[in-house]
C-alpha cells in the first residue's frame, strides 16, 4: 500500500484552477456580500499562480463564476493590452478554455483593475474590480479590528473628518481615487482605486459589481440598482476629474477619461484610457451608449452636479 495508491488519479488542475471547495466557499461568500451591500466579507483567499497584489482577489472571484458559456474581458487602467491584464486573461483562458474579448458589451464577466468601461453595462453582465485595500477607514484607523467595530456601529465620523480637513486645508476636496462611498445607506466602502470619474457609474447600475481583495482576503458587492453615494457635504458637491479642456489625440473624443502622455517638448497629449472603446471608434464600429455623453452629461439623474 502506497500513498500514491490512496490518492485520486493525477490531474493537471481543476476546471478554472480552483478546486471545488474553494469555488464553493467563494460563491457562498459572494452571495453573502450581495445580500449585505457594501459589507466586507472575509474569505480564505487561496494562493494562485499570480503574485499577491497583482489581482489574485479579482481572479479568484472570476474563476469561481466563470463557466464554458462565458465571455471574459480583462483590463488594467482601462487597457486590454496592458501586460498585467494580458497575463490574467491568458491564465483564465488557459484554465477554462473560455472565449475572451476586448468588447465591453460582448463580455459576460469583466475583470478590471482601477477602471470602469465608458460604455453602459447591462443587467446580464458582472464587473469584478481588483481591490488592493478594501478598508476605507485605513487612513484614519490602521487597526483592522477597530475598523470592523466602526463599521458595525456605522461610526463614520472619522471619514467625514478627513474630508472636512481637506476642505479646511486646501479649500477643495483633494481625495482622488478610492473615494469613500455609502452603499445602500449603510456601509461605507472603498470603490477600489477607480477615479472619481467612474464612481457614479456604480449608482443604480443595471449590472452587478463585485470587489475582491486577495491579499487582504475580503470581498464585497454592489448589487444592481443599489444606491451608491460618495460622502459629500451638501454645499460642496462631488466633482469628477476636470478634463474638459482635453481631447483624445487618436479619436478626437472628449468627455471620457483620458490618460496624460508627457511629450518631449514639455507639453502633454491625451488619449482615451478605455482602449476597447477607442478601438471600436477607430474601426468605425458601433459603440454602445456611454455613461457620460459627448457634452459630459451623465446618463441618468444621479447626483452629479454641473
Amino acid at each position, binding site marked *: 500500500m502506497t500513498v500514491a495508491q490512496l490518492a485520486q488519479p493525477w490531474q493537471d488542475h481543476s476546471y478554472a484552477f480552483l478546486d471545488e471547495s474553494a469555488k464553493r466557499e467563494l460563491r457562498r461568500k459572494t452571495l453573502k456580500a450581495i445580500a449585505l451591500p457594501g459589507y466586507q466579507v472575509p474569505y480564505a483567499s487561496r494562493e494562485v499562480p499570480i503574485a499577491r497584489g497583482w489581482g489574485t482577489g479579482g481572479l479568484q472571484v472570476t474563476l469561481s463564476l466563470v463557466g464554458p458559456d462565458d465571455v471574459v474581458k480583462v483590463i488594467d487602467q482601462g487597457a486590454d493590452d496592458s501586460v498585467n491584464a494580458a497575463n490574467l486573461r491568458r491564465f483564465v483562458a488557459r484554465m477554462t478554455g473560455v472565449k475572451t474579448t476586448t468588447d465591453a458589451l460582448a463580455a459576460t464577466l469583466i475583470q478590471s483593475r482601477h477602471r470602469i468601461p465608458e460604455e453602459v453595462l447591462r443587467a446580464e453582465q458582472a464587473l469584478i474590480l481588483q481591490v488592493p485595500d478594501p478598508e476605507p477607514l485605513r487612513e484614519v484607523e490602521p487597526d483592522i479590528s477597530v475598523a470592523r467595530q466602526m463599521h458595525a456601529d456605522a461610526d463614520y*465620523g472619522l471619514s*467625514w*473628518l478627513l474630508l*472636512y*480637513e481637506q*476642505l479646511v486645508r486646501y479649500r477643495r476636496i483633494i481625495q482622488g481615487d478610492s473615494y469613500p462611498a455609502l452603499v445602500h445607506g449603510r456601509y461605507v466602502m472603498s470603490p477600489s482605486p477607480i477615479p472619481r470619474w467612474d464612481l457614479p457609474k456604480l449608482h443604480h447600475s443595471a449590472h452587478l459589481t463585485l470587489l475582491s481583495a486577495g491579499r487582504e482576503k475580503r470581498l464585497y458587492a454592489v448589487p444592481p440598482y443599489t444606491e451608491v453615494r460618495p460622502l459629500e*457635504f*451638501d454645499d460642496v458637491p462631488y466633482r469628477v476629474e476636470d478634463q474638459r479642456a482635453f481631447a483624445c489625440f487618436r479619436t478626437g473624443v472628449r468627455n471620457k477619461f483620458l490618460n496624460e502622455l508627457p511629450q518631449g517638448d514639455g507639453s502633454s497629449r491625451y488619449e482615451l484610457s478605455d482602449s476597447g472603446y477607442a478601438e471600436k471608434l477607430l474601426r468605425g464600429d458601433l459603440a454602445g451608449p456611454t455613461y457620460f455623453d459627448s457634452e459630459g452629461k451623465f446618463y441618468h439623474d444621479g447626483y452629479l452636479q454641473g
Partner: protein
Amino acid sequence: MTVTYRAELLPPALVAERPLLSISGVSKRYGAVRALTDVALELYPREVLGVVGESGSGKSTLLRLLNLQEDPDAGSYSLELPAYQGANLFSLGRFAKRELRVQHIGIVYQNPYQGLRMNNTSSGNVAERLVVAGERSFARLRQAARSSLAASEFPLERMDAPPLELSGGMQQRVQLAKAIALQPALLLLDEPTTGLDVSVQALVIDTLRRLRRELGIAMLVVSHDLGVIRTLSDRVVVMRHGRMVEMGLVDQVLEDPQHPYTQQLVHAKL
C-alpha cells in the same frame, strides 16, 4: 411633564420640577475592588452638582457610567428626555447608548487625550460631533464650530490648530466646545481645572459659569478641589470608597459638614 431644554434663559423654577437625571442602586466592581456601592443621586435642570472625593472614591467610575461608556453591575439610570422617559439607560442597546452620548451628553475629560483627536484640527474635533449627529453642510459645520469655540472663549484665530499644539487650558476649551456643540441637556466634567495654572483655572471656571447661565445646561462636576466645587456647584455629594457619605447644598455641606469624613476633608483643604 415633558421638559424641553433650550438655550434661552428660563425663569427660575422650584425644586418641585422633575429631576433631569436620576440614578439609584448603582454598584460596580472591578475584580476584587468595589468601585461603587449603592450610589443614588438626582440632578435637576440647570443645576450644578459637585461630586467631591479623593482618589479611589469612585468618582471617575461614576462619570464613566453616566456617560454610558460602561455598564454597572447593578442600578438604574434615567434622563428626563423625550423618547427616553421611563427607560433605564443602562439596559439600552449599543446604538441607542451611542446616540444618547452624541446628542444629549457632553463630557470633558481630565486628560484631553481621552476626549480629543490630538492630531486633527480643533475645529474638526467640534465638527465631527455635529457631522456624526447628521449635519452635512460644510458652511454650517464651520459656523457651528466657530460659535461653540467662541462660547468656550477659545481664540478663533487658532481654530484650525491641532490640540497637540495648544496649551492645557486651550485643550480644555476645545473639549468644552465639543461637549456643548449640540447643546446637550447634561454636561459631565471630570476634574476640569486640575493640572492647569491657577490663573487659567479661574478663567475656565468663569467660562463654565457663563455657559451655565447662558445655555442653561445641567452640570455634574467631579473634583477633589473644594474651591472649584464651591465656586461652581449648587449642591454637592461627598464620596468615599465608592459610597456617598453626605449630600446637600454646597454652602451647608462645606460650612457645616455632618459626616466625619467630610469634616476631615473640609478642615484639611479650606
